């Protein structure tokens, strides 16, 4: 596009390019789905060679579903921010870490009861939402017209700062958040037909389902949610009809931080939260959001769950040490098969 003169032909082309082409009703499977099927088939075959039976696969599936739900929550945060303000928010992982860490600290003075835990979790989530909003206001809002690389670097800078503060406050040691059912370190195990399920996994699934439903209701049923969707469709048009686009950006960051914090808190009892847990979870959440197309909420949820399950299968069947490799290999493959990432996008100009 060396010649930016608006000849009628060029204008026509641009308008045509801006109008989304309606998809045919019977469309091909997206490449991500094909990849998924292929990967599962390969992993199952590899498992057969190790003599895995149905019970082993079910166990791996159950484990994967729990982490996958958390990835899905984190991924939704990426999608909300990307759709509303066009930024890939690297700092998302920081809130996945801040949620459980704040929760643990708040739990200290509170009584060791369910109400205490709930209060601590709610306050920690609210604090994360506030810091997400603050991050947008202070760091990203001033750079709303900057190049994408500058904005990536800013969110990275924010992540490094927040993790640095966390190291200062909490130190490098791992912490413990009590399991929600027993309110102690030891979780109750539920035996479902030979498959052992941690009670915490049920909490993860429940919370994730409630959050997905709440998010859906927010975007469908509230004015703020509809305004955010309008920003995602067309920022200029949204501004023209009186939506405060910048405020929606702040709201999106707060919402993303909330989703990250919720994911981190429900996951915390089955891991040991540390100051640097956000990096891995943030990146995995990002992979999940890419798997879902980066703009689709159901896609992000599906991507997160698929990633969790696949990763669990991979770790169980291949090599535990290479568990993380899988997600990042998926990332590169997905990016390459994801048409939007190769199209000349307006943001790369």
């Amino acid at each position, binding site marked *: 596009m060396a010649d930016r003169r608006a000849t009628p032909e060029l204008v026509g082309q641009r308008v045509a390019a801006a109008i989304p082409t309606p998809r045919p009703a019977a469309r091909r499977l997206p490449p991500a789905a094909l990849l998924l099927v292929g990967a599962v088939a390969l992993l199952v075959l590899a498992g057969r060679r190790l003599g895995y039976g149905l019970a082993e696969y079910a166990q791996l599936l159950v484990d994967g579903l729990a982490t996958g739900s958390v990835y899905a929550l984190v991924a939704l945060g990426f999608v909300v921010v990307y759709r509303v303000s066009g930024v890939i928010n690297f700092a998302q992982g920081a809130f996945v870490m801040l949620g459980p860490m704040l929760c643990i600290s708040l739990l200290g003075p509170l009584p060791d009861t369910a109400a205490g835990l709930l209060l601590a979790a709610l306050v920690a989530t609210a604090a994360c939402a506030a810091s997400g909003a603050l991050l947008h206001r202070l760091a990203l809002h001033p*750079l709303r017209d900057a190049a994408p690389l500058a904005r*990536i670097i*800013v969110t990275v800078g924010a992540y490094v700062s927040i993790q640095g503060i966390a190291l200062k406050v909490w130190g490098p040691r791992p912490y413990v958040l009590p399991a929600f059912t027993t309110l102690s370190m030891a979780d109750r195990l539920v035996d479902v037909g030979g498959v052992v399920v941690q009670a915490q996994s049920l909490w993860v699934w429940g919370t994730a389902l409630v959050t997905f439903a709440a998010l859906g209701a927010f975007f469908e049923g509230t004015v703020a949610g509809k305004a955010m969707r309008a920003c995602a469709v067309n920022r200029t048009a949204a501004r023209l009809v009186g939506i405060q686009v910048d405020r929606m950006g702040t709201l999106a960051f707060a919402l993303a931080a909330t989703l990250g914090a919720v994911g981190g808190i429900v996951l915390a009892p089955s891991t040991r939260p540390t100051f640097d847990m956000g990096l891995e979870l943030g990146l995995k959440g990002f992979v999940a959001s890419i798997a879902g197309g980066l703009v689709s909420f159901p896609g992000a949820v599906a991507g997160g769950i698929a990633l969790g399950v696949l990763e669990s299968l991979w770790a169980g069947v291949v090599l535990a040490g290479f568990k993380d490799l899988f997600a*990042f*290999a998926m990332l590169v493959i997905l990016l390459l098969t994801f048409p939007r990432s*190769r199209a000349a996008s307006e943001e790369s100009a």
Partner: protein
Amino acid sequence: MTARLRSPWTAVPCAVAVVAVLDLVEPFGVRLGHLIGGLLTADLAVRAGLFTIVLVGLNLLMGYAGQASLGQAAFYGMGAFASAILTVRAHVLGIPPEVVSAWWWPWVVMVAAACAVAAFAWAVGWVILRLRGHYLAMATLGLGIMVYIVLRENLGMPHLNLTGGFDGIVGVPRLRLGSAALWPVGVYLLVVWAAALACVALGENVVHSPAGRALRAIHGSEAAAESVGVDVGALKARIFALSAGLASVAGSLYAHFQAAVVPDTFGFVPSLELVVMSAVGGMRTVWGAPLGATVVLLLEQLLRTHLLGLVPAVSGELEPVVFGVLLILLMRFRPSGLVQAAPAP
């Protein structure tokens, strides 16, 4: 430093002037004497030289061609581990000891590793450089982490224990030239900076060649570059390969300097640090490379050693926080870095 630095012949007087001003004004109570005695150690100077080599490549890639890389430390690590493995654990691979102990062996390894890493990057580049903007950044990030994991997990061959896993490899020998050891550190410093300045010169040559102009055209608009006859895909892959090869050489030099390599030196955070250095120095200049490397390393050192004195009750642990905040402020107020790009010739 808004001066438009175009060549060493204006940069050197500027550097002298900055040093002189530092000595006179003593910002934060830091005197030049402190800088030399306390902060600017030989170790720091060597590392600044090594990062300069990496950054020349990164600046060509990010600043000129406009292709973000958040995984550059992977290539640095590949070079470092290639040198370490082929000098310390060569016997595992069946390379005869008399070859390994010859003075020329590490140099051969360094060159071979750089070629291999460049070839790897070229092949990978053909595929992933089709991605743009955010997506390319994410793919390079994924690639960087994958390389890190492979290094950490012993290349997937634990029985050979080539990379030493988390602990890495110790006892990498110093470089020699004939029978003369390139050590103590003062001598090595000269070697590294000679290499760094050679790389800067190489970078300047690339920038002022037709390829350099084509790179800038790609940055402006790939479609326009393509329409005037630039083979965009090939050129991007080549510049990616060049930047990876330079990073590999720097990695080899690092391995022989540090005498020990661990995978954590080449993970995600170091990749990030490289981008920061590049942004601080000014991505769209070759001379931003030595400046960015030196300024960031000095700043880190300053934060580590003097933060306690500047702000009581704050310890050096806050270094990453200050670092992150500075990064945000830099992007906000000086997005093109300390050295401004020269107008296109």
